[in-house]
């Protein structure tokens, strides 16, 4: 007799916990051949709001940490992911139907991307900040700071895509509510498990699975969200609606990017788009 496998329950990842959707709903996630992989939690408006509350609560502590410490935590995510490569390769093959070679490429790239961003934590300030030589006896310094709570619609590519949009935000001190790829949500929750065991404080990253069209508008119009990354929105009309909603409190918006090649080395823009420049003046004198 063959062994019956123990199936995994995929839930949400909010505030460092793995709750089911408060709505009690789930949706069927099949593999590319139409076989059931799991019933994923279908997040509701209330789940989205809980996630924002968790992200806001985490913001002060996370943004207040030293850049060195944030770098170590993001590096630690890469370490833990490295240790679970086979699991992610298997998940990617099952969920996205990619070949073994491709799955390996994506997992490796995701790990390397985390390492790349980890290194940026204590350098981005030096690269995009500067002293300003004002015409007067003043010390004048411009430094970048995180914008706050950022809502992200993750692109397809449940591992590399997700890592590529979330890592630049957390390494710079933002906290994140991310809507995982609707078609391939399971890897995102497994990645949540990696983050939960990587010294990342609860609430810094919150992962919602479910319907983009249902959840995203609540995040776009939420008055305690400071930024909206629409990278994974493929419906142009929905993207426009979300951008309009984001105007209510002037969220920083990153518009959709349908044809991004996630294997390429990123520019700085994913970090700087959700940072503010603060300029401090002080007189020079005795």
């Amino acid at each position, binding site marked *: 007799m063959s062994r019956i496998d123990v199936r995994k329950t995929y839930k949400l990842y909010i505030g460092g916990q793995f709750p089911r959707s408060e709505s009690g709903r789930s949706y069927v996630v099949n593999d590319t051949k139409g076989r059931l992989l799991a019933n994923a939690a279908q997040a509701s408006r209330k789940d989205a709001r809980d996630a924002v509350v968790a992200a806001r609560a985490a913001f002060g502590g996370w943004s207040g940490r030293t850049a060195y410490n944030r770098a170590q935590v993001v590096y630690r995510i890469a370490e833990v992911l490295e240790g679970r490569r086979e699991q992610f390769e298997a998940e990617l093959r099952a969920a996205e139907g990619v070949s073994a070679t491709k799955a390996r490429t994506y997992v490796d790239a995701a790990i390397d991307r985390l390492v790349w961003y980890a290194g940026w934590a204590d350098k981005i300030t030096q690269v995009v900040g500067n002293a*300003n030589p004002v015409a007067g006896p003043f010390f004048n310094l411009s430094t970048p700071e995180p914008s706050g709570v950022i809502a992200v619609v993750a692109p397809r590519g449940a591992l590399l895509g997700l890592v590529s949009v979330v890592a630049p935000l957390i390494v710079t001190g933002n906290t994140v509510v991310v809507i995982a790829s609707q078609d391939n949500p399971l890897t995102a929750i497994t990645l949540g498990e990696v983050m939960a065991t990587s010294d990342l404080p609860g609430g810094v990253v919150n992962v919602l699975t479910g319907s983009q069209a249902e959840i995203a508008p609540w995040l776009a119009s939420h008055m305690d969200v400071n930024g909206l990354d629409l990278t994974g929105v493929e419906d*142009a009309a929905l993207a426009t609606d979300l951008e309009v909603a984001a105007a209510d*409190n*002037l969220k920083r918006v990153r518009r959709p990017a349908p044809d991004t090649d996630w294997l390429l080395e990123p520019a700085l823009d994913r970090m700087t788009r959700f940072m503010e420049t603060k300029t401090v003046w002080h007189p020079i004198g005795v």
Partner: protein
Amino acid sequence: MSNIFEYAPAPESRAVVDIKPSYGLFINGEFVDGHGKAFKTVNPATEEVLAEVAEADDADVDEAVKAARRAYTRVWSRMSGAERAKYLYRIARIIQERGRELAVLESIDNGKPIKESRDVDIPVVAAHFFYYAGWADKLEHSGYGSTPLGVAGQVIPWNFPLLMLAWKIAPALACGNTVVLKPAETTPLTALLFAEICQQADLPPGVVNIVTGAGDTGRAIVSHPDVDKVAFTGSTEVGKAIARAVAGTDKKVTLELGGKAANIVFDDAPLDQAIEGIVNGIFFNQGHVCCAGSRLLVQESVADEVLERLKRRMSTLRMGDPLDKNTDVGAINSGEQLKRIRELSEVGDAEGAERWEVACDLPTKGFWFPPTLFTGVSQAHRIAREEIFGPVLSVLTFRTPSEAVEKANNTPFGLSAGVWTDKGSRILSMANRLRAGVVWANTFNKFDPTSPFGGYKESGYGREGGRHGLEAYLKGADS
């Protein structure tokens, strides 16, 4: 109020300025008649009509955008940065040469004291063109690439008419963009004089286009399909409307919007300087400043002393003819704005705050509001939450640094903040914790072309000035 140190009037001559009875639109290097109606611009200190100005309609805006596009494609984007730079240097020099004329006209049209337009606005305007001229041939060192966006549509407010024009036009041109700019409907005259300066500088036609008008003209610019970049300074309400209007387009946007800055005074602050900073922070330009320090947060232990000194200092402010060189506080820019200031101040009375104002005789003509402060203000009061955009200061108190930070950050805005204390480590810790784009420590309201300016949260996005100011006008590297 009379005292023994009465000042004799010292009016600046108006002879240097030649105001025409009517003005057209500046499109493709020439003044042309618009299709819309004309509107009047008045001197807010006297209500005297200064000139008639054309209101640009959709067709006019379309012509201006077409002119800008032609100039962009055929001339300006093809020109080397070094050549563009020389035009900007020319403009900077002409502004310096015609500085007195510009300052007098600015004060006549806007109502601000001549000492501010002469000693602050115009020198900083020239400095902006000078600063960005130098960037034009060095863009590859900026970190944002060197590819311009195209045609920039720019809408600016009435509080610093020429300075806002410089903030918008200088970086746009340096980066290789061409512009269609709309000055505010109450202060169009210096922008039109700037158009003449562009002619004097032989700037290629269409590189700068100035269209006058009000909200409808602004909307036509912002929503024009051939505008690649929108830059706006003004109210948060209009900023939100613009953010909605550009949703789903490829337009790049920067918004410089309202503020409700906290000016935080600790008990160990150098009080004499702090008082000057508070006064400068809220009464400079009649409080028509988006980064004005309109909420004074003073540590409880020194609150009485600070208030006493502040009232004494406020009583010495001279209010009156903007062209008088002794004037500290000029006229409110428009009747409409005066109405808004009065209304919000009355809300302050109604909500139980205590009003104190400088005793002075206000001129019978023109729009005037005396320097005013409210005590007994709580966080929930509208005068502590909404931007009044006038010479009205709300005073709150705090006990600990954390309470000061919490109160300062308790607003949807995040443009600027002030901190006054002798303790260096406290300054740095406060500067870190304040959610504001500019923090002035032991100083206030300082500006410089090399220094980026802009807000957090609902104060808008993007930065103007400095290296960071180039980002808004270059394609950058997205991925």
